[in-house]
């Protein structure tokens, strides 16, 4: 699903800050990989490159067997829209829109009819446990509920890969457990997942843990023990 090789990301001009310093790994379809590492080590940068939000300075990247180098901004955006889902730490819901409208947003860009959008959005919100709260705005939802909307939205265009940057970072531990249950459910259904986290308990639920330090992968390990 994801193949990157010797990816370098330098901020600023040449000789600027090397946020990614030759990162290579492969994530097969259906894998749940956790990315861990200290703050500022380049995890978000990595996710942005994988999410086609940012272009690496050098190195190659194949997403679902498509080489993305040299694609135009619009082409990358279309790939992102059709194959990728983002879940953010701070949810990034549009505050003036209802949960339903937020979930509809990516489908609008994909050109789905209004009827299809609403139908699918209702289904997704029901699936993340928000049935009956479709018309609430983010302000009227708890943190956990907001993240559920965020997950529903990330699934709107039926992506092949979910990228989550510290999705439980703003949630209490009880809510985190609930959100992680959702991710595990998605994984069980075959979704490929890349999840950045600081929490070893969460990383332990993954198939694989990639440890990053100073822009490099320093360890690629299987979790010691699957949780009960």
């Amino acid at each position: 699903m994801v193949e990157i090789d010797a990816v370098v990301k330098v901020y600023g001009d040449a000789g600027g800050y090397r946020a990614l310093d030759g990162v290579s790994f492969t994530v097969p379809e259906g894998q749940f990989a956790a990315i861990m590492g200290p703050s500022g080590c380049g995890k978000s940068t990595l996710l942005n490159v994988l999410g086609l939000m940012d272009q690496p300075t050098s190195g190659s990247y194949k997403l679902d067997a498509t080489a993305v180098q040299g694609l135009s901004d619009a082409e990358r955006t279309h790939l992102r829209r059709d194959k990728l889902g983002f879940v953010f730490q701070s949810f990034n819901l549009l505050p003036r829109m209802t949960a339903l409208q937020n979930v509809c947003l990516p489908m609008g860009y994909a050109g789905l009819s209004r009827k299809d959008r609403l139908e699918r959005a209702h289904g997704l919100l029901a699936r993340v446990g928000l049935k009956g709260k479709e018309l609430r705005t983010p302000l009227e939802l708890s943190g956990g509920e907001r993240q559920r909307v965020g997950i529903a939205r990330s699934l709107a265009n039926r992506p092949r890969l979910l990228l989550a940057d510290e999705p439980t970072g703003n949630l209490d531990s009880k809510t985190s457990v609930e959100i992680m249950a959702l991710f595990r459910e998605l994984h069980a259904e075959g979704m490929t997942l890349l999840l950045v986290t600081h929490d070893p308990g969460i990383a332990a639920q993954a198939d694989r843990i990639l440890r990053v330090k100073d822009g490099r992968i320093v360890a690629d390990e299987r979790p010691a023990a699957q949780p009960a």
Partner: protein
Amino acid sequence: MNVGESVRTGFVEIWSHKTRSFLSFSSIAFGVAAILYTFANVNGMYIRRTKAFDIAGPGRLEIEKRESGGFSALVGLSKGLTTGDAEAMRAAMPWLYMLSPTLRASADLRDGDFRDRVQLEGVTLDWAKRGWVFTKRGRFFNSHDLANAARVCIVLEQGGWAGKKPFWARFWRDDNFAGHARRADMLGRTIQLDDGLYTVIGVLKNPPRDKDPRWFFRSGGLLILPLTTVQRYLARRGATDSLDGVDNIIVDTGSVETIPRARRRIEALLSGRHRGVADYEIKDFREMVQNMLENMRKYAVAVLAVGVVAVLAGGVGIMNVTLATIFSRIREIGVRRALGGTRADILVQFLTEAALLGVLGGIAGIGLGLSGIRYLSDDGAETVAALLWWHFPATLAISAGTALLFALYPAYQASRLDPVEALRYE
């Protein structure tokens, strides 16, 4: 992203920034109102010109009496403009459709207890050929009345207003006699003018004032009498004025093509009869109307300029609003990009919002313009009626276009934002 979606989002955004939206919206509205007002007036002007030409007759010329001034030695050489001039012109050009000499005067009128000083006009039979639509009761003068300077007169009753009287007319008191003429049926009565008694043989009613296209010759004459009668009994004349003097002679040659020929003949004829004294002036009616239209056009251009400036100010407002909006929505732009919105989607979204503001402002401006025209201009209803259907889409296009144009730069800026930076923005 489809346009319907952008429009919906646009409404939400506009609504959640009411004050900001309202400011740019209202400047657009004022501009549009001014532009619409101009459209209405310009078109009304052309409609009126056409009507004026229709009514005045196609070949109209006016010979107006003028104080010769200057060389007093010459004054004695000419008798001034006279009935004789009119008769000579008629004899030289029997083909003229109308040749109507008039003499204005004023007199003290008494009708029972009613007294007033009134304007009157002495006319000949050709006056009837001016062809204006009156309702007539009684009869017009005949050649007998003219030949004998009969003591008869015709009352010109003012038309009043067809629709609601415009508010400004309430401050404009109807002339005393005009009111009296409307209230009292004067047909057949004998009235006193200065020292003489005159019989009212006819009553002519003017068309309603707001339906009357003779906007440039609203003359003060309220009574008409045979020209000879006025000359003999009512004219105040100076020592040098002749007994058969007139104020003007209105000529209708019958067609536009014959005006230059008639004009040359008249110039030659009068120059001989007046022995070179320039105590008259020949005015081409078309020239007069054209001059008047020229002035109106200048005025229209001025109003249009104001409208354009207002719309531009609205555009700058919209640019400002769009820039501010974008600034407060940088993160949203990042989210939208992350969710699959292309640069074009972002551009379209902000342009749609601006165009919405423009269209809404335009609609409000049309409302404002229409009520403005109705209540502020003299002939409101008629001016509004002068608007053509395409004036409305045109004004809307102007406002939406301006809004779009001014939103282009900020919207472009928004679409160029780096999505990662935008998402990071607090």
